[in-house]
Structure formats: C-alpha cells, structure tokens
C-alpha cells in the first residue's frame, strides 16, 4: 500500500517533469502498466526513430525491477526478437533506489552504446562483432523501417 503511493508519485513526476526523448503513460485501467516511447539517441544508428515499449511494475515494485519489453522491432545485440532487454539494472543490479525514469534513461543509453560482448540476440551480436559498419547500417535500416512514425 505504502509502495503503491510511490508509484503514484513517480507517475505524477513523469507527467509533470518529463525527460526529453522519453515518455511513459500509464493505462487508465491499470496504473502499473505503462506505454513507453524512447527516442533513439543522437549519434547512433537509432537516431530519429521512436521506439515503443511496454513497462509493467510488479506487485512488489520497487523491491523487484520493472518488466520492460520493446514493442518496436530493433536491431540491437542486447535486445532480442521479442523485444526483451539484456540490461544489468533490470536484473541483478536492480536497486529500489532506481525508478522508472532512471531505467528508461539506462535503456536509452544502451541504445547509444551496444554491448556485443554480453549479447542477448546472438546473431546480431555476431554480426556486430564481425562487421560493425554493416551492422550499424542494418540497424539504421531497421530504424527507418520500423521506428519511423
């Protein structure tokens, strides 16, 4: 109960004091379910794209991390076909001192700095390691194809 008050506060703050390039809007019928959009960071193959994601706050949030999945297809070594994200703060390194805002910023940073050494999508990571330029071109192509409004 006390922690759902935190969710309300976080939601209010997200609406009032929005982070540029990131939005998270809760569903009317379920305040724990958010529609998220993340703008692709500049200087990256995802620049110009608007990536949709869904975010769900579990019952024991903030003691457990929120669940996030990309809905927009994205060519990224740490994001698989289903949109699942390999990010330490979403798993073992989660801390209750983190919040939706910081998690989304971390994801945005992940888009700007792919980490093929800790892959989730193995084929993408392979391609990234073998020919980074080609992989970036593919990523840019995917962004054009899927992430343009």
């Amino acid at each position, binding site marked *: *109960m*006390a922690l759902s*008050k935190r969710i309300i506060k976080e939601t209010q703050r997200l609406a009032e004091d929005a982070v540029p390039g990131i939005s998270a809007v809760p569903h009317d019928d379920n305040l724990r379910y958010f529609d998220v959009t993340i703008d692709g960071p500049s200087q990256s193959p995802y620049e110009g794209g608007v990536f949709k994601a869904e975010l769900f706050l579990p*019952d*024991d949030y903030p*003691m457990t991390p929120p669940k996030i999945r990309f809905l927009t297809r994205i060519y990224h070594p740490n994001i698989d076909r289903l949109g699942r994200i390999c990010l330490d703060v979403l798993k073992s390194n989660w*801390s209750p*001192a983190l919040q939706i805002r910081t998690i989304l910023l971390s994801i945005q940073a992940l888009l700007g700095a792919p980490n093929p050494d800790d892959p989730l999508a193995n084929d993408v990571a392979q391609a990234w390691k073998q020919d980074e330029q080609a992989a970036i071109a593919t990523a840019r192509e995917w962004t054009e194809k899927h992430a343009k409004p």
Partner: protein
Amino acid sequence: MSSPEPIPPPNDRRSSRASSNASLAVPTLDNTREPVELLVVGGPPSTPSPLALRASNSPSSNRRKSRIAKLPPDVHLLEYLSACDSNLICLICHSPFDKPVQLACEHFFCRECLDHAWDAQHDAQKTCPTCRGRVDTTREPLPVPKIIATMLDELVVKCPNTKSGCDWIEQRVNVHDHVLLYCEYTLVDCPDFDCHLYITQKDFHKGCLHYTEHQRTTCPNRSTACPHCSVELLRLELNAHVKDICPKVIVPCPGTLVGCTVAVERADLAGHAKGCSMAIMAPYFRDQQARIERSEARLEPLSRKVGILEDGLSKITNMLYPPNANDSSFPVTNPLDPNSDAFTTAPLVPTPDFRLPPASFPPVPPSHDTSQTPLTNPTPPPFDSQIHHLLTLHGSLRDEVSRIANALTDYEGRTNMMIINENQRVKDEMLHTNAAINGMRMQLHWLVSATLQQRTGSTNSTGNSTSRAGGSTDSNASGTQGTNSNLGSRSAGASATLHLPLRRLSDSTRQNTKL
C-alpha cells in the same frame, strides 16, 4: 493489497525510537515481519497514554478491551502540507523518512524500506540500494543524527482521517497520539458484538449503525410488498408506509372525534370527508379541545399559587389576631405596658373591628370557581379596619417610645444629681480628714520641739512661737506649704518654745471648731 506482506505500522514515536535503537543495538538482522499490531485501548499498551491508562483503570476496561481496537496511522500515507526538503525523502518509498536509519556509506532510508529492500536480495550479502556498496550487517544500519529526526517531526501533516471529515493539521510528531486518542473519525470496532464492521469513534456511543445501513442498501431481503396496496418498498419503511401513506389501509373518518363511525380506505377518505359534516367540524373541535387543555394546564399552577397565597394570608391574620383573643387581652399595648397612658389611644377604634377571625378568610379550594374568589366579593372586605388598627397600633407604639425616652432623661437627671451630691459629701470628708492630720502633725512637732528644748536647756522668744502659730494656721489652708514652712522653721534652729500651754490652747480651739 499491493504488497504481499503487510508493512508493520509505525508504533508510537517514543516506542518506535526505542525499538529502532534496540534493533540497532542487537546487530542480528531481523527479517521476521511482525503481524499488524493493533494498539488496544484499555489494555496495557507499549507506551501508556493518558487515555489508555484511564481506560485500563476503569472497571469496564475488560469489556472495552475486546471491543475498541484502532490501527496506528501509517506515516507513509500521510498527506504533507509543508514542503519537504528533497534530502529528507526516502529513495525507496519516495516519502519523507519514517524512522530513518543510516548506512556506513551515508545513505539514509526508512527502516522498513531498507528491510524490504534487503528482503528481496535473498542472499547474505546486503548492499546499499543507492550505491550498491557492501553493507556490514553486524554494524549497520546506524542511527541517524538527531537533527534529521527533529526535522522530520516538524513536518506538517493532515490527519489521515481527513476524508472522513477531520480537519486536524499539525506536526507529524503528534499524529500518532491524535489518531489513537483524540481523532473523532478514527475507526473503531462497532459497539455491537454481532457486528464486525468499523464505526467512527464519534458515532461509537450511538450503537451499531450498520444494521440500518444494511437494511437500506445491502440486504438481499430488504424489499417487501405492502400487504394492503402491494407496492414494493423497503421493509424498513413498511410501518411508516402503512401508518401514513398506504391508500388501501382502512382508516377512520377524521370526524371520529365528534362521533362519526365511518371507516373507509384512505383513498376514499377524501370523498367521505367532503360530505361528512362531522369531519368538517372536527378541526374546530380539535382546536377547541387543545385550547381547553392549554387553559386547564395554565389554570392548575395558578390555582396552586392562589392556595399558597391564601395560606400565607390566613397565617398572617392568625398571627395578628389570635382566635382566642378578647378585648382585654388584645395584644396592642399589652405586651409593652398594660398600665401605660398609650393604652388610651387603643379604644379609638372599636375592638370588634380589629379582630378578624380567620373565618373571614375562608381558604378557597383549588377547584374553586374564579368568580367566587374573595377579590371579587361584593361585600366590603374588612381590610380598612385592619389598616386602621395598624395605624392605631403604630400610634400607641410611638407614644410608648416617647414615654420611655422621657423616663430615660428623667433618670439621667436624677442620677447626675445623686452623683454630684455624693461628690460633695466625699469632698467634705476629705477636708475634715486633712484638718485632723494637720492637727496631729502640729502636736507631734510641738512635742518633738519641746523635747529638744528640754535637752538643750535654752530658751526661746515668744515672738518666735507666735510666728510659728501663724505659720500653722496657714498650713491649715494649704497642707504642703504648711509642712514646708514648718520644716523650714524647725531647721532655722531653736524652734522649741516656752509657751507650751498657749500652743496647746490654740491647737485645741482649732480642733474644737473643726470637729
């Protein structure tokens, strides 16, 4: 509902501080969650509050103990009115700290938030939620500086029962006592033993209100049909409906008061009443009846008052004119002085008129008709003779007083005279005594000087003795001067004389004249 485990509600501020200190002193990590603790008013609470002490001392505490149980307020749910410094916000619950603790890395958390966060970590290696630094659970968490607790205590909050109507706004440190002891809107167990719902504290004395609520809104069996008109309505309102509204109920004509015996259904009653003269007249009769009743009600205290007044009057009359009094023993002047001159004024008024036997004031019974009260009696009341009598009495009393005053002055004069006479006599006596004393002194001197003369053998002149005689006559008029001159003459030297017989003669003559 959201969190699987209930968060232990914050205890009383003092006890919470004590408990946090205690848990800090014991370094083992306490992972077990206490069940939601109900603070029981009337039982032995962790910190004795005034109300709880009073309740626990009262004889009915056993009964109340099982009935009134309140939840202490949840600090996390409070609505803060004062702007809270962002540094006082817990990063985990995003609210101002509640019972804050500190880690070695100088990050602060609510004690409960930290415990929750560590619960989720599953392993023995606990980390700081902010910096992920390792935490030595044998030493940490540490107590926070006092100033932080004070700043938190001074935050202004609204009462958690604000939605129920409480407008209490105060510092956070007081909210626990307010909710548990003073807030009228705190929910307590319903006073009805069979009812398991809650009720606000201010309605506690009204008994269970939930049954009525249940009958109105939630009971599946709440509606019924009127047996007369078969209208659907709440069972709760059936009686009122039948009594006042239902058109099919057979009711008597409003003229029943005046004697109409017709009884028809309520719907047809209007038609009947239009034609029934008794029904038309009934309101007037009712008005009259009410007026008569009002008048009677008013009359009753009035007649009682009249009775009391008459009682008092007859008592006064009895006091003034005892029933056995006759002319001779009439107490106008008798108790003062039966033989005084003032008695002559009394016969001015015929005595039979004074005497008003109590029979002339017949006490009116309370049910007596007002037309026969003595006030409206056509026969002249005997009051004027009474007044006359009182005036006479007054005159005689005044005479008596003046007579006594005269007697007093008389006595005074007489006493004065007596005192003056007595004084005169006493003065004479004193003069006589003085003269006798002087004579005796003279003789003594004479004897002494004669003895001296005999011893010395010298002679004295007669002139000397005559001057002495003159000095002695002077001393008769004023005693002290005489003795002085005698002493002077004696000290002058040879005062003894040869003319003893002459002196004795003069002395003896003086003695004779005085005595």
